[in-house]
């Protein structure tokens, strides 16, 4: 674990893996050191914002060393994440055939592997409510498209690198589009605006012909 300076009211903690980020973020969220105002997990880091009136980088570094050792029990879920969000997906994305061709699988096998995996929200970013889910079957890992699309519709389920994501709103995008969900995952009028917070467990379920039939994943 490395604690890096990040301006006058934040430090950046760097660890070695997405799993360590999850553990560190879960532990810090459960028992934040005094003066900490915000935690922002990412791929290999947790950004820790603090109130410089109540703490300082030196005190924070000392407090953070208590979190240096990740728990030995790897299966321990991060705090407060017992819910599994089930997302119904129609696997009819424009890149399904290409993903199958490039991974040496059939389209059916791509769908089976994508629905078999257990995912977890590692972090959010790129756009409000865009969650980076880890847990993707290693055989489905592909680099981003060389030519990003100018517009990807909301609800598109896509993969790139080690991640799966669901576009919460229409935006440009360079990921491989596998399908779509009719589930509304991002609603700024709701509290919280998304169910896909860092640490949340996620499963993808193949939707039948009528996507309206299983709107509610609970």
């Amino acid at each position: 674990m490395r604690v890096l300076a990040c301006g006058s009211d934040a430090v950046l903690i760097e660890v070695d893996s997405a799993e360590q980020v999850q553990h560190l973020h879960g532990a810090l969220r459960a028992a934040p050191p005094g003066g900490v105002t915000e935690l922002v997990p990412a791929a290999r880091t947790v950004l820790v914002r603090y109130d410089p009136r109540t703490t300082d980088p030196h005190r924070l570094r000392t407090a953070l060393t208590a979190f240096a050792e990740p728990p030995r029990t790897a299966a321990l879920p991060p705090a407060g994440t017992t819910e599994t969000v089930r997302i119904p997906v129609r696997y009819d994305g424009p890149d399904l055939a290409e993903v199958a061709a490039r991974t040496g699988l059939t389209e059916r096998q791509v769908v089976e592997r994508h629905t078999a995996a257990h995912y977890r929200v590692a972090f959010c970013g790129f756009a409000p409510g865009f969650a980076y889910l880890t847990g993707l079957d290693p055989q489905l890992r592909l680099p981003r498209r060389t030519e990003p699309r100018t517009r990807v519709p909301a609800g598109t389920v896509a993969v790139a690198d080690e991640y799966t994501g669901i576009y919460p709103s229409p935006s440009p995008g360079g990921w491989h589009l596998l399908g779509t969900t009719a589930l509304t995952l991002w609603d700024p009028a709701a509290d919280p605006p998304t169910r896909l917070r860092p640490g949340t467990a996620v499963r993808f379920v193949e939707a039948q012909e009528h996507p309206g039939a299983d709107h509610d994943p609970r």
Partner: protein
Amino acid sequence: MTRGELLVVRAGFGATVQDLGRPGLAALGVGRAGAADRDALRLANRLVGNPEDAAGLEAPMGGLELAFPRAATCALTGADCPAWIDRRPAATRTPLHVPAGARLRLGTPTRGLRVYLAVRGGLDVPPVLGSRSTDTLAGIGPDRLTVGQLLPLGDAATGWPTADHAPRPAPADRTVLHVLPGPRDDWFTADALRTLLAEPYTVTPDSDRVGMRLDGPALERARTGELPSEGMVGGALQVPPSGRPILFLADHPVTGGYPVIAVVRRADLGAAAQARPGDTLHFRLA
């Protein structure tokens, strides 16, 4: 609508509604946004007896014209900008009485970039995720001002104006921004940080609430490769492959994949937000 409303007669150059933003949601991919020069909005609110976090207007390069159907108290802060209430010149950094039926008009700032307008009671546009600020990157919050738009006034005032005038510090000859190295200064050559701290950088026209692209000597990387996305902060000097830094402002992305060589300290972010294209920035160690 008992408190009245303002009519936008001229929308300026991308003027937006801003308060102090929506902190604490970056883990959900939502940035803070809020006034780019937070101290200026706070001061404007204090001058009219509002809480510091009431919603006002942020007008880059002025250019705004508002009609007041009812009398109101307002204040202008931020960039030095000529202003008129009908034909009468109006001072900045002081409470202004706008009579019913009058128009408030902003000219072009003589110094600085962003003018702030607070109106007693605050602007009562619908909040999104707890804030009335426009996040221009995420597309959250109210749209940019448009001609003919009505801005409802609220009842946010908690006190009475207590100051006649907020004196302005003597204008600095040049914009000096203090930085703390890191978090990724080790991705750059030792010369890169020395260059950043020694050479002037010019604000380019490719600058907005998200960030300012700067022109100056390229900051050379000591290592290649991709940085996994990590959390970003306001004031971060992110360096894309061109080597020319981008200084992140209020609507910066919550995560980014280019290394940050240094971060402008919080106290200097208002000064950074008031730099306009063509201005020169000098970076110094905090």
